[in-house]
């Protein structure tokens, strides 16, 4: 009998060990795991788990803390089969035992001298398939690791870090493809979205987010040869609609950031949402949020896929809180704007017109002497992950609320060097603040706002327990009521809370994991 039980256990483990395509497609219903960056292909970051809920969240206590020693953490950990997989800065990664938080293996690779990146060698996490894990390394390579050992299966050069390319985002696995984005728009790179074969690391397609000669229509939106340094990086993970077989990626700012004079035109497909055919990488549609951007308002914020009722009809929507201060709902079959409403103070546009273009306010561009514009360079909302709760029907994200002075400078392009031609400063005696927002995606109206002294530094997690989890740069982890925005629990974790919380079950109990400072914290209810 014992032997029989053992066999059953072994079989169960063997079946559970591989992250299959089916598991990825049904990841929303697998509340025991966290299988991809955005929880599901729609990037909801919502878990049905409700053991931790509005009535008991105040009793949450730490189960274990793992000090990674891996610099600033922006990772969304993955969890499956009793193991957590997470990445750190500077090409570090680790597998942790869920029971104790102790490391099972660690991976590190020295970052080559000369790797730049605007904002450190941060990394936002793994993607998984089978027994493989995929991550970007800072020097713009894609590496596949054996989930059981951390050993390298293959490593592919995505592009040349000496030209200013770098990488920080978590990949997205669809079928036999690892789809990845790139960073480097502050260094005059030409951005793209790539797909690689999961088993060999061979590149299958590339979509250039800056239209060149192969795309005559888009090419016309770039004066002269400016497309060659056009930016448009793709540093936050996209989403995927299996029915339409499209993958959605937000694109970054045009280069150079604030001197638009050297790149006349709309600068397609920067500051846009692009819908790509997963098989070919061909562009199905695009929507440009900020034509000819001069404020560094990347459109890389999460593309969240929700089927929602609008005027009594179900529409396939894509939700997106843009850095430019507007919340958008797009029709994800064709890129048409369903609604666009400001969620914070906006000075540069009166609204979004019926043609989908912003109605510009004159005099908002950066100048040599500095010009005030709202929101500031970082937005509005930035890269921090967002959450959509089907329980409340609300969309949750953080925002910086205020303005900045934008400066424009002239600068010659030199390959591999920073090509930003700009800076910003705080507006004297006007302190920016922040908030956590809940927006009704059907109207774009803000349902509630939790005011904070600055933008939450962490992303959002929504749960079936009626909760939204986030955190701030002073080290507070917070749980708020998803319906009202009322603060229900806080914990001082001693370091900037980044990335976003995940939740899953272990031994039948719901746990919550997030990062603060250089540490990974796991919380649970008292036994």
């Amino acid at each position, binding site marked *: 009998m014992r032997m029989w039980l053992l066999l059953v256990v072994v079989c169960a483990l063997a079946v559970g060990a591989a992250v299959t395509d089916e598991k990825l497609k049904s990841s929303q219903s697998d509340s025991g795991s966290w299988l991809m960056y955005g929880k599901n292909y729609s990037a909801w970051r919502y878990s049905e788990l409700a053991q931790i809920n509005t009535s008991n969240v105040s009793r949450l206590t730490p189960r274990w803390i793992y000090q990674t020693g891996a610099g600033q953490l922006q990772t969304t950990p993955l969890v499956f089969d009793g193991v957590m997989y997470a990445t750190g800065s500077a090409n570090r990664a680790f597998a942790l035992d869920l029971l104790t938080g102790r490391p099972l293996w660690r991976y590190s690779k020295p970052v080559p001298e000369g790797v730049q990146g605007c904002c450190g060698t941060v990394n936002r996490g793994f993607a998984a398939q089978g027994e493989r894990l995929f991550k970007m390394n800072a020097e713009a390579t894609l590496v596949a690791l054996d989930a059981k050992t951390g050993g390298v299966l293959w490593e592919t050069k995505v592009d040349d870090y000496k030209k200013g390319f770098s990488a920080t985002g978590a990949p997205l696995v669809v079928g036999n493809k690892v789809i990845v984005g790139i960073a480097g728009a502050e260094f005059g790179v030409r951005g793209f979205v790539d797909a690689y074969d999961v088993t060999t690391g061979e590149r299958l397609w590339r979509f250039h987010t800056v239209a060149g000669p192969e795309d005559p229509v888009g090419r016309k939106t770039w004066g002269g040869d400016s497309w060659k340094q056009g930016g448009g990086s793709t540093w936050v993970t996209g989403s995927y609609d299996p029915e339409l077989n499209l993958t959605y990626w937000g694109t970054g700012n045009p280069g150079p950031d604030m001197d638009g004079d050297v790149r006349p035109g709309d600068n397609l497909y920067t500051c846009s949402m692009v819908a790509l055919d997963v098989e070919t990488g061909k562009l199905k549609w695009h929507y440009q949020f900020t034509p000819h951007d001069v404020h560094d308002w990347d459109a890389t914020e999460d593309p969240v896929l929700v089927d929602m009722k609008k005027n009594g009809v179900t529409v396939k929507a894509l939700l997106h809180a843009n850095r430019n201060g507007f919340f958008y709902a797009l029709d994800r079959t064709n890129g048409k704007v369903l609604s666009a409403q400001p969620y914070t103070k906006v000075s540069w546009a009166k609204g979004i017109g019926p043609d989908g273009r912003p109605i510009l306010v004159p005099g908002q561009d950066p100048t040599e002497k500095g010009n005030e514009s709202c929101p500031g360079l970082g937005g509005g909302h930035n890269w921090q992950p967002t959450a959509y709760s089907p329980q409340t029907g609300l969309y949750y994200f953080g925002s910086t609320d205020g303005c900045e002075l934008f400066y424009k400078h002239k600068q010659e392009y030199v390959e591999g*060097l920073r090509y930003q031609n700009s800076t910003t400063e705080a507006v004297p005696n006007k302190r920016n603040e922040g908030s956590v927002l809940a927006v009704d995606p059907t109207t774009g109206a803000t349902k509630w706002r939790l005011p*904070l002294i600055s933008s939450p530094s962490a992303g959002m997690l929504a749960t079936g327990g009626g909760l939204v989890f986030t955190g701030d740069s002073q080290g507070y982890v917070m749980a708020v009521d998803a319906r009202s925005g009322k603060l229900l629990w806080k914990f001082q974790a001693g370091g900037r809370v980044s990335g976003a919380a995940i939740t899953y079950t272990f031994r039948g109990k719901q746990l919550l994991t997030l990062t603060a400072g250089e540490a990974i914290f796991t919380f649970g209810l008292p036994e």
Partner: protein
Amino acid sequence: MKLVTSVLVFGAGLAFAQGEPQNPYKNDPGAVEVGRGVFRISCSPCHGIHAEGGRGPNLTLGSYAAGDRDVDLFNVIMNGVPYSEMRGYAGMGPENVWRIVSYLRVAAKSVATEKLPGNTASGEKLFWEKGACGQCHRVGNRGGRLGPDLTRSGRSRTPQYLRESVISPDADLTPGYDTITVVTPEGKKIVGAQRGYDNFSAQLMDSQDNYHSFLKSEVTSIQREEKSLMPGGYGKMFSKSELDDLVAYLSSLGVAR
């Protein structure tokens, strides 16, 4: 960068070698221009567009807290200063850090060595006596603790900035010196200079140098104002020549003589 690497390797290989890493872009005009651009993006928010200081020290004086050699500047930009607002910028790559160093050398040269009109000794007397600045400010091991420590004010601020701070204390508040006013449930009002402030609490020092800490949920109100506790009126209290003397004194503090 190869040059730097080889110098480092050379230095490590020969224990008796006295060489230190050298700036590969020393006197390179192209590097100065790139350094200027990088500086404007990464450094100017604290050190000012022209490196003349603001929230961070003035970097055009040619004399630096971290040391005055190129390698000292390189190390402090790469690694930052622990427990200060100056974080490390290794992420921008050593080449760019060397280019910033090259730019700073030019920026420092371009600022004329200013001969200040005031008398330092007279300014010191005014500081401690007529102005009673020492009630709240510390110089060395003397003075109060409520306001910013001025032991190194000559290194960290330009004379113009110091003059403005004396006349208009609110013009550019030193971060972390906001005024916090707390009203307790008993109706007691406590005013002090911010030592900590977050979404849920505030820590402050009162005029008697006592620390207080409050949870927002436990008091009637906590107000934070972006204004200084320093009284106004020094522009009227001091004559023009006295102000010159005071600025000369403050500008001398922390500067090698």
